[in-house]
């Protein structure tokens, strides 16, 4: 798993940190369910992402605790049973609200960036 670049600009790090929740929920939208490491690999396969387990697993635990994710425990080839995560109805609703907010912010920033320089 790739580690975050320490020389990364602080604003970029803060931006990604703020988007972890949205990223995790969005990564679960396109699949029926996924276990933690599987989800981590799915996210980090996307360009620009370098999330680590210490970020994603506490987030998964927290999202499950507040009812945005459903957990199904299944057998694992090794170690403890795997925890398979899926979006609940509340999770889908929350993701839709976050997605809308993100799109709005993205559009606003894009419109500012697209303005011709004075």
């Amino acid at each position, binding site marked *: 798993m790739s580690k975050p670049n320490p020389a990364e600009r602080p604003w970029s790090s803060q931006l990604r940190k703020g988007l972890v929740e949205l990223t995790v929920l969005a990564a679960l939208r396109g699949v029926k369910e996924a276990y933690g*490491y599987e989800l981590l690999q799915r996210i980090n396969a996307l360009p620009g992402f370098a999330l680590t387990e210490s970020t994603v697993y506490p987030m998964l635990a927290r999202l499950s605790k507040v009812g945005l994710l459903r*957990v199904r425990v299944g057998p*694992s080839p*090794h170690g403890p049973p795997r*925890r398979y995560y899926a979006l609940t109805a509340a999770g889908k609703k929350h993701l839709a609200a976050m997605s809308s907010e993100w799109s709005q912010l993205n559009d606003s920033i894009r419109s500012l960036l697209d303005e011709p320089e004075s």
Partner: protein
Amino acid sequence: MNASNPDPHSATFSDDVQAKLDAHLDAVDAVLQKYAQSRSQRSAIVDELDGQLREMLAAKAAERDASEVALEDWEWVAVSIDPPEAYARQSIDLPATNFTGFANEEAAEPNVSRWSLVGLAWTVYGGVALTLLILLMLSRSSQIVRLPGGGVTSEVESPSRLWLLVLIPLIPGLFAPLVTTAMGILALSQIKRYPQKWCGWGLAVFDTVLFPSVVVLGVLFGVVWSAIFYGVEMIMMLNGNRNFFDDGWTNASVDRHTVLQLPAMALAGVSTAVVLWLVVRRLNRWGLGEPA
């Protein structure tokens, strides 16, 4: 979706690897416990990590066509995973999830850094302690005692037990220069790392630079005063007047020590202000993540 694809049933774990794995998981669990994660939360996080590490180790062993995971596999995996301390950072950094999106998350106002408040309180504590100590010293002034034979003598009063009892808890206040500066540095670091959670940058800077500024002022005054003192002495000697300060000028209306101390103090004060300004500017730039 497919994760990495080792043969999950062929890999076994040596005792060495199992010990390393357990130690890492225990360390992560301890960090999570320290940061008040509930038992179920910790269990979920550690189980996820356990599963990931076993999968990574099995994949690595499979690359070697080995059926047993060896220590070298662990060493390869260990460098690519987060250290246990990273879980403390994440526990603090990530805001609690709510159902109302970004707007409400932003509504959580940061609090003034506790470290900087402790630093300020310790400064006040130190001031009170110093004042009371000075009062005690003054109260020990000598007093005239009449002797039975008609003579008199003077005695120095010993501090009363009550005074001593009052002073003992004030002794830590005398460490204010060290404590306040350390608290200020801790507060600066805390606010820079978690700006969404902590504020009070100005107070933290104040705590950090207060006592070092006093030290700089004292040192600069000593240097400038010494330079002026010996410089004037030398000039006077060269002009045939042996001693500027002890040559009968003591009756002058203005004390010459004071006359020379004033420019020394002014020069030291201005120099300290410049140093202070440079330090504060550098700290502020560091806080904003700008190059110094």
